[in-house]
């Protein structure tokens, strides 16, 4: 066993923390208040290499490992959830899927500019009438000559109004669609510039207000056949394996949010007096602090274990789902306690903790709601569920391979 983060990991943490504190923290309260999304921050994240952190150098990335991805998510969400969401969709759900399933041509054409931060990518599975029930989606892709024609509407898509590339899941086999046989689904790389793509932004969200969330409408959208990711019929498998990447980033981010709650609570508990002593001296306040410490540390090891499995190239669907479930609940509970510790001051946006609470709720819903993750865990335990090998697995981290230029 080896629990140590390498010197490289520690330097990555320091760098991303410094970046987030200088480039995001000073602006985030205003952006959140105004429901305003900042392209500038995204551009800077790209320039800093963060948008390709764990992608091999030969595909335009920074060549770091999957643990570094988790550390970056932690440090970004320690400042604001919206910045971590970018890594979830751009890297976790999209770029890692291209790395896992893409052809060499697709990697050159799409992964390279994404890893370099020149193009922004997202992932679109959810629809107005189907979220948890992914097989219930209605979007279709009809083959016509050397094209597919896509029709349907995607909803609740992070960066919908911002991204250049979308990973779209749709039915290619209409017979199987009727029978809800998911081997009739396929995955497509869709560019914003393709004819028939329209996007919109959803307003009035509870949290992640500095992030963009929206809809994608596909009306006879013409997608070249070579933009099919994987094979026809592999769409569901691709969508689910993408979630192994996405959920990992969400789980890691949640640890950062707990850290932020803890730091804010400790500061306040030492400053605020009640009954003649700093409130940190009251045992029930200590209990809330103690729980945050426990949630942060336990959550961190759940994430790093999943990351270690990824580095080794070992399937980690169960471990990632577990980390995602536990950590997102833990972040929500920690944020609620952080508001509690701040009393009335925590209830207004003079302090950051109310934003933490609003932001933490989303992650209990997206990338598998907490109910879905409980079903998954129980199904593994009961023997109802087993991972079958995939035609393409996410490649194990190999530092030499990842850092070679050609």
């Amino acid at each position, binding site marked *: 066993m080896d629990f140590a983060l390498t010197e490289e990991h520690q330097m990555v943490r320091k*760098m991303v923390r410094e970046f987030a504190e200088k480039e995001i923290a000073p602006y985030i309260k205003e952006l959140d208040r105004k429901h305003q999304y900042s392209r500038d921050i995204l551009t800077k994240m790209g320039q800093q290499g963060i948008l390709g952190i764990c992608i091999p150098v030969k595909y335009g990335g920074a060549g770091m490992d999957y643990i570094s991805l988790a550390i970056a998510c932690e440090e970004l969400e320690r400042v604001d959830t919206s910045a971590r969401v970018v890594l979830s969709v751009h890297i976790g759900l999209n770029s890692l899927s291209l790395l896992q399933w893409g052809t060499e041509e697709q990697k050159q054409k799409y992964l390279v500019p994404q890893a370099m931060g020149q193009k922004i990518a997202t992932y679109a599975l959810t629809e107005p009438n189907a979220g948890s029930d992914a097989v219930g989606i209605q979007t279709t892709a009809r083959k016509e000559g050397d094209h597919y024609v896509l029709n349907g509407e995607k909803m609740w898509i992070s960066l919908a109004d911002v991204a250049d590339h979308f990973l779209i899941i749709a039915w290619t086999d209409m017979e199987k669609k009727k029978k809800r046989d998911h081997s009739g689904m396929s995955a497509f790389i869709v560019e914003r510039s393709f004819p028939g793509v329209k996007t919109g932004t959803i307003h009035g969200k509870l949290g992640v207000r500095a992030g963009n969330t929206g809809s994608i409408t596909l009306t006879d959208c013409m997608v070249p056949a070579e933009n099919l990711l994987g094979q026809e019929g592999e769409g569901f498998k691709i969508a689910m394996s993408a979630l192994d990447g996405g959920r990992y980033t969400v789980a890691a981010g949640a640890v950062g949010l707990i850290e932020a709650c803890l730091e804010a609570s400790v500061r306040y508990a030492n400053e605020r007096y009640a009954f003649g002593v700093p409130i940190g001296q009251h045992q029930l306040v200590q209990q809330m602090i103690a729980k945050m410490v426990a949630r942060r540390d336990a959550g961190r090891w759940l994430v790093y274990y999943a990351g270690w499995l990824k580095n080794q190239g070992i399937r980690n669907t169960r471990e990632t789902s577990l980390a995602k479930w536990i950590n997102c609940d833990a972040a929500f509970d920690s944020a609620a306690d952080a508001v509690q510790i701040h009393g009335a001051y925590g209830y207004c946006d003079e302090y950051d903790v109310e934003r933490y609470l609003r932001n933490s709720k989303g992650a209990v819903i997206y990338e598998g709601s907490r109910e879905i993750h409980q079903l998954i865990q129980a199904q593994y335990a009961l023997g109802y569920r087993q991972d079958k090998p995939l035609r393409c697995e996410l490649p194990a981290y190999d530092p030499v391979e990842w850092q070679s230029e050609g």
Partner: protein
Amino acid sequence: MNIIVCIKQVPDTTEVKINPETGTLIREGVPSIINPFDTYAIEEGLRLKEKFGGKVTVISMGPPQAMEALKEAVAMGADEAILLSDKAFAGSDTWATAYTLSQAIKKLGEFDLILCGKQAIDGDTGQVGPGIARQLGISQLTYVFKIRHLDPESRTIVVERLLEEGREVVETKLPALLTVVKDINQPRYPTFLGIRRATRMQIPVWGAADLPGADSSKFGLKGSPTQVVRVFNPPKREGKVEIIQADSVDEAASILADKLLAEKVI
């Protein structure tokens, strides 16, 4: 361009704690950073290298943990790094620090420019940069806020110095030593590639024995002419708040102006 940047690792706090018995800084238990002004010196060095070619060497004198500061500088893009660390160097005052650094710089050979921060946020003397320049017998341009012109051919440099009364433009010949203020640039973050280089780099550690040309009686505490008699916190400045009450904003403003004039603030 052969550029040398002197960096100091300092505690990550402006509240420096001092051991009342020895008069020295207490470093234990305080997270360390590169002296903020030195990050601007590193950045300026990297920019000059990008413009004129050459290399940037960072050097630091300090305990073994100062290696971290050097690695961070390498992660930002510095090409080489040297750590000066030896029990014999411990307890150096600014004179001994400048002496030891200049001996190491001599050993490094030819150079065009030495960059330092304007001061260290813990020691705060601002003496080490000028001290190095004197030891090496080269020009010193302190408080540099802008390099206006640098010509490696004619070996001249023109800089703007940020002084309390205004700016001063001065010119000198290379090699020269500059101490920089923070308005000079915006330091970059380390890069992922740089982080990998830094963690794999074997950074040489030089001790007294590696500076054979130097006079070892000038190292460390015994080589330090300064005697610290007593270290203490100056009494806190007493301030008082006065709220000006008036019927209109204009009236309040004129009362304020009168009071400021009376206090000779304006």
